[in-house]
């Protein structure tokens, strides 16, 4: 008699993985709590988080969009201007610290910084640089827009039952004086990098845990009972400023995020959805990646989301992911801008 004798087939790699077709490996996730079409779901995070919002809407679930665009704005403009992607128009946020900043501003726990970037006479918002690609017409306009987004985050939180947050990166850039963390380095979208003012920061595991703990604690104070579903963006880093090879840096980054997500998922109000494993584990042989080996293909997104909804008892879409396959980095992803700085091969 030993402890493994009574374990199910899913506990053994050979029976659960190696001997099964890759798309039949599973079930990989069982939700901690019921999620149905009446569950009000909000989504923030890195590029992959957008897939949740889109899929939730498509499947007829209740997606919280607290900052909608005018009804007549076409879809292409909505995407270009950062609407419909998340539950407020905050663009990509990659680290728990960036989410924490937004939550603290929205809750009034921290003052909103008066900090903006400029380029060619236009004003850019450093905490959501991608939502207004050409910049705002004035400082006043940028400030008003940020104020609206912060109010929208507060509004979203007040009506959210389930917050999906996709962790993306551990590398970030900060203002040395205030500690304000940006989702992209100064100089990429606007302004310019000033080593005396701006600092590179690598979040270590303990910091990620601290920030996620602060996020979850704050959410419970704001809306007791809110559930949080963590995911990890499966796409590798587009670039690293760590000095390591980007492949090694990616592995370290995702390991930290994965460890932190797993730790947080021990809390009763938090769960972890393994989209990262679905994309990156050996049985899938990178089949869900686009040709650039970074973005997840539409097919891959479809399979991941079918897994999510399948666990909720819904049928799979019959033909997941028939959309175009990106050959270069996903243009809606702020981090994609970094690719333009890569040397020519």
């Amino acid at each position: 008699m030993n402890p493994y004798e009574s374990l199910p087939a899913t506990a053994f790699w050979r029976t659960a993985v190696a001997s099964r077709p890759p798309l039949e490996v599973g079930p990989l996730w069982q939700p901690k709590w019921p999620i149905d079409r009446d569950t009000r779901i909000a989504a923030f995070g890195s590029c992959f988080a957008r897939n949740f919002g889109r899929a939730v809407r498509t499947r007829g679930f209740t997606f919280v969009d607290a900052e909608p665009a005018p009804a007549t704005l076409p879809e292409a403009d909505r995407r270009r201007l950062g609407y419909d992607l998340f539950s407020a128009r905050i663009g990509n946020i990659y680290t728990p610290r960036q989410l924490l900043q937004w939550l603290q501003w929205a809750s009034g726990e921290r003052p909103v910084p008066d900090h903006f970037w400029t380029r060619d006479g236009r004003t850019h918002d450093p905490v959501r640089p991608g939502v207004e690609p050409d910049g705002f017409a004035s400082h006043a306009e940028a400030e008003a827009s940020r104020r609206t987004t912060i109010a929208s985050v507060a509004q979203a939180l007040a009506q959210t039952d389930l917050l999906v947050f996709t962790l993306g990166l551990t590398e970030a850039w900060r203002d040395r004086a205030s500690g304000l963390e940006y989702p992209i380095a100064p100089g990429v979208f606007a302004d310019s990098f000033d080593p005396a003012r701006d600092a590179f920061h690598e979040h270590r595991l303990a910091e990620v845990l601290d920030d996620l703990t602060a996020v979850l604690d704050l959410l419970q104070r704001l809306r007791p009972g809110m559930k949080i579903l963590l995911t990890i963006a499966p796409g590798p880093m587009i670039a690293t400023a760590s000095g390591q090879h980007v492949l090694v840096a990616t592995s370290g980054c995702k390991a930290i995020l994965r460890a932190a997500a797993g730790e947080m998922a021990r809390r009763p109000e938090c769960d972890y959805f393994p989209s990262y494993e679905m994309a990156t584990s050996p049985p899938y042989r990178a089949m869900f990646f686009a040709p650039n080996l970074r973005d997840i293909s539409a097919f891959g997104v479809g399979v991941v989301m079918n897994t999510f909804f399948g666990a909720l008892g819904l049928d799979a879409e019959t033909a997941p992911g028939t959309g175009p396959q990106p050959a270069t980095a996903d243009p809606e992803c702020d981090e994609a801008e970094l690719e333009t700085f890569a040397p020519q091969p």
Partner: protein
Amino acid sequence: MSLFLLGDSNAHTLVKVAAEQGWPVYGGHIAPGRFLNAAGFFTVDDGDVRFHRPESEVKYRAALAGAGAARLADIAMPVLCLFGMNLHYQARAEVWDGFAIAPDEPGRFLSAATVQATLRAQIAGAIAFHGHLAALGLRVFSALPPRRCAAPPISTRRDVLLRAEDVAAEEIAAAGTRFIDHRPWSLDPDGELKPEFASQADSVHGSDAFCHRLLEDVFAAVRAG
């Protein structure tokens, strides 16, 4: 010098005034402006267009026949096209309520880029129509509607209306249409339409005096080349 009018509801008074004055204006009302905005309200067809809305197509064919043309490319006179100029509707509360378009106003603030993109999209079909007229080699003129805010249920937002004026003027000019700006004479120092230029029959259209003066401007522009 004659003029071929492709108009929205403002065309009714323009045609009436032209007839009273004996000015040679052909064509007229094709459809309410809201049917002349969205992408796809017409199809390009061998030097011509076809309107998808049957009533509009009938009126358009009658307008062509009245001008002695079988198709749009055969129109030999300048064209006054008002498509895309129902700005009171573009600025309607249904779309804009709850939003602020100035940084210091209450409401969910929309950046200038968002406002412009929204307004451009709302008249994209009309602008495509203007572009088609230019592609046919026609001399095309257009003008803003009188600056008026429609009463409920449309409930025009005045601040959006002013932005819409700028966007419409830029867009039609970019499409090749010559923009006739009546605002220097039609507005008072506060930017309001002078009372004598407002129709008393509704909250949207211009008076006979407005249409008279506008047609004078258009004919002057035509003569000036």
